[in-house]
């Protein structure tokens, strides 16, 4: 099928099989490898991207669902080489260790802050509960998201 959608604010048009996953589309077709593959069944959140404002697992989302939608990936977070407040907060709060869950974490956090710019800690934990991290124990990540929210409000 011919597929047209918006990826990180740029229109994309290409020919794909409708049952191709968004994850394969990003990683294999478009060579955008920032979005990670880990469990393949929607449990770990490493492949989280934002579609029309909602966080989705790209490993379960099919290309056939994409026409006309707005997709954001980790590659769309920084602008002109400048980190977003959320990315900077992950650095400042030591929220990154191996970094493999980080792109998905960032996208889940971004989706939360889009909808709820001033989340409570419990809301942050809930929003990140679909993203597994084996390194950090989550504390630093939760702090980073909270700090980014605060900075956004100031």
């Amino acid at each position, binding site marked *: 099928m011919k597929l047209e959608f918006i990826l990180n604010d740029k229109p994309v048009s290409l020919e794909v099989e409708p049952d191709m996953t968004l994850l394969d589309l990003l990683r294999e077709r478009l*060579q955008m490898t920032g979005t990670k593959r880990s*469990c393949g069944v929607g449990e770990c959140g490493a492949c989280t991207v934002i579609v029309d404002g909602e966080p989705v697992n790209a490993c379960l989302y099919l290309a056939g669902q994409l026409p006309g939608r707005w997709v954001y990936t980790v590659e769309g977070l920084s602008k002109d080489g400048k*980190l977003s407040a959320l990315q900077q907060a992950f650095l400042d709060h*030591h929220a990154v260790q191996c970094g493999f869950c980080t792109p998905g974490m960032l996208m889940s956090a971004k989706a939360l802050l889009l909808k709820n710019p001033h989340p409570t800690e419990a809301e942050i934990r809930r929003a990140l509960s679909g993203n597994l991290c*084996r390194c950090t*124990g989550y504390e630093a*990540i939760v702090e980073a998201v909270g700090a980014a929210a605060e900075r956004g409000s100031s």
Partner: protein
Amino acid sequence: MDQKGFIRADVREKVTGEARYGDDLVFSRMLYARAVHCPHPRARILKIDGKKAMEIPGVVGIYTAGDVPGLNQGPQDKPMLASEIANSAGDGVAVVAAETQEAADRGAALVEVAYEPLPAVLDPEEALASRPPVVLYQEDGLTDNVACRHRVVKGDVEKGFREAEVILERTYRTQRIQHSAIEADTAVAVPEKDGITVYCPCKFPYHIKARVAQGCGLAQNQVRIVQPAIGGSFGGKDIDIVVIAVRAATVALRTGRPCKMTWSREECMQEGSKRHPFRLTYRVGAMRDGRITAIKIDGVADAGAYRSRSLATIWRAAVEAAGPYEIPNVETDIRAAFTNNVYSDAVRGFGSPQVDFASESLIDELARELNMDPLALRRRNIVHEGSVNATGQVLTGVSIDRCLDRLEELFPLGEPSVTPEGKLRARGIACLHRGESYGAAARDADVAGTDVRAFADGSVGIYTSISEVGQGTHTAMAKICADVLGLPLEQVRVCPVDTAFVPDSGATAGSRGTISGGNAVRIAAESLRDILRGAAEGEEDVIFQDGWLCRKDGRRLMTFREAVQICQSRGVRTDAAGQWVAPRTGWDFEKHQGKTYYSFSYGAAGAEVEIDPVTGKVEVLDLLCLHDIGKIVNYPEACGQIAGGVAMALGYTLTEELESRDGVLKNKNFDTYLLPTAMDIHRLRAIPLEETAAENPLGVHGVGEASTALVAPAVANAIARASGARLRTLPFSLERVRSALEKEER
């Protein structure tokens, strides 16, 4: 103590998605591979028929054990591909290579393998019985299934039990878990004119290099291992990566094309190595005043089908099993059994989490029996400066007393907390000693090489094969080097790990990265500093600070860059090698005594739990974990190491368990194998202490592993204090908690 620390060099690319991990790599004409796995715990492979698989468009070849160019299997080692007999379910028996991953997957599903299922032994106790149903390695001359056995003997336990006024015997069991790095194991093999390059995440590049050379029938100077960004290790990404790398290399060498093999999550779960499950039976004798007179420990671990790093795991378990206590009479005997279960290997902590769960639960059980406060009982028995531990080693640098002081101050056991209606709440504690680095029984020499080079622009590169698996060790090394050379951190960089350029620094294991790698960097940087001093001829006492060479009074002589250029213009090399050689240790295998580790680290933890007696659900409301790590290089990252270990240990305590039916694992992915999420952690306080400088030039202790060992006993002890119910089998699932509570009510 500087608690602010500094931001790591590797994280910027990790928040932008630019960091390239193994599975992100693509090479021209690259093939993709998928393995075919044995569905039986033990089976003879009769026939492998790839005809149907070869009909799938894009499939280019099917490879079996006979195609592995070099050594397919060493004695009792995991084979690259099972040849005649597969010894555990999940073992790879063939590899399908194709133009796309999809074609490789479809091909692998169509390979027809005829098996003759053979009798298997799945219970480690049964495997060690005098007449086991199966002896796995009869053909290697083995007459039993003992993979390894380690003993510790001190004093006379029978005498100690005769003196005792109270004797307690308890059995504890721990389960099989998995590293579960979020990055799946992967390797890309690229054939070269005269050898092979393998891009892979790993924790011990020179081990991978040696084993890939062996598997490919190449000399080690023909094999190059390159590390991309690494998505977590937790003790894994070692032998599993050897296997994957040799499989990919087999395809690459047979086809002349690059080949990527990335395990699916299901393959990681089914074939990847696991933490050894243990059964530990403790008999302890004590006086009414709490003084422990004797302890006798009998343990059996499940090594699974292959040897791997069972030796180091079982030895560590035996050394540490009696806990951080000075006990006059000790006898420990731990055996690991070969079974037809998936093989066990190092998992963050080696054998510590298993024995610490048992020994620290036991101390609380003894405290209850003696009607003593658990902290007071610990204080009565803990080791002190100059104590002789269970293996006869005289201890120095002991700080467990101060760890317990801090624990009491920050986490008072008796602190009453408001308990909601219908729930039970209480606190529990635990403490530990932990041997650092490899220890005396290791086959690998405990050494680390590092090169440091200064370039003409004044920048400095560090060459090490200590691996950045996510723990921040490369930035710590850069900081250590920058401090010696008086440079800003930004001017020093750890170069990518590539065995074509970096020396062998040993394994990033045993929490030795900063101790061994860091001290090696310090030695190399000091040598480089001595070389560069030569640029300031005629000057004495030249010091290096703020990017300058200065007189002692601070007067600037020349910039660091000028010093490098002057040396180079005179034909002097501006690089230096550092070699860290760990202090000697030794083990007497006849007397079961010795200097086991060159140093120990100490820590303590507290947990507050809330139990719902109706569902059996345990919430860990508060976790406090403190570890004396000597000199702290980067405080927030040290906190991160402890916090991560604690979270991993929380999974070990409550939810993580690989279950099998008839020798086949039932959990295949993260939907049934449950890692802790952000919702499972309520309050976590990770506190690194700088109590005692470790006995190495940097004064650093390891920080990676100890925090994985204390959560299970602290939670078990809290549950017992809340409810009276004692859980002796991990994990504390809803069913186990409910049934323990019911038993307590009866």
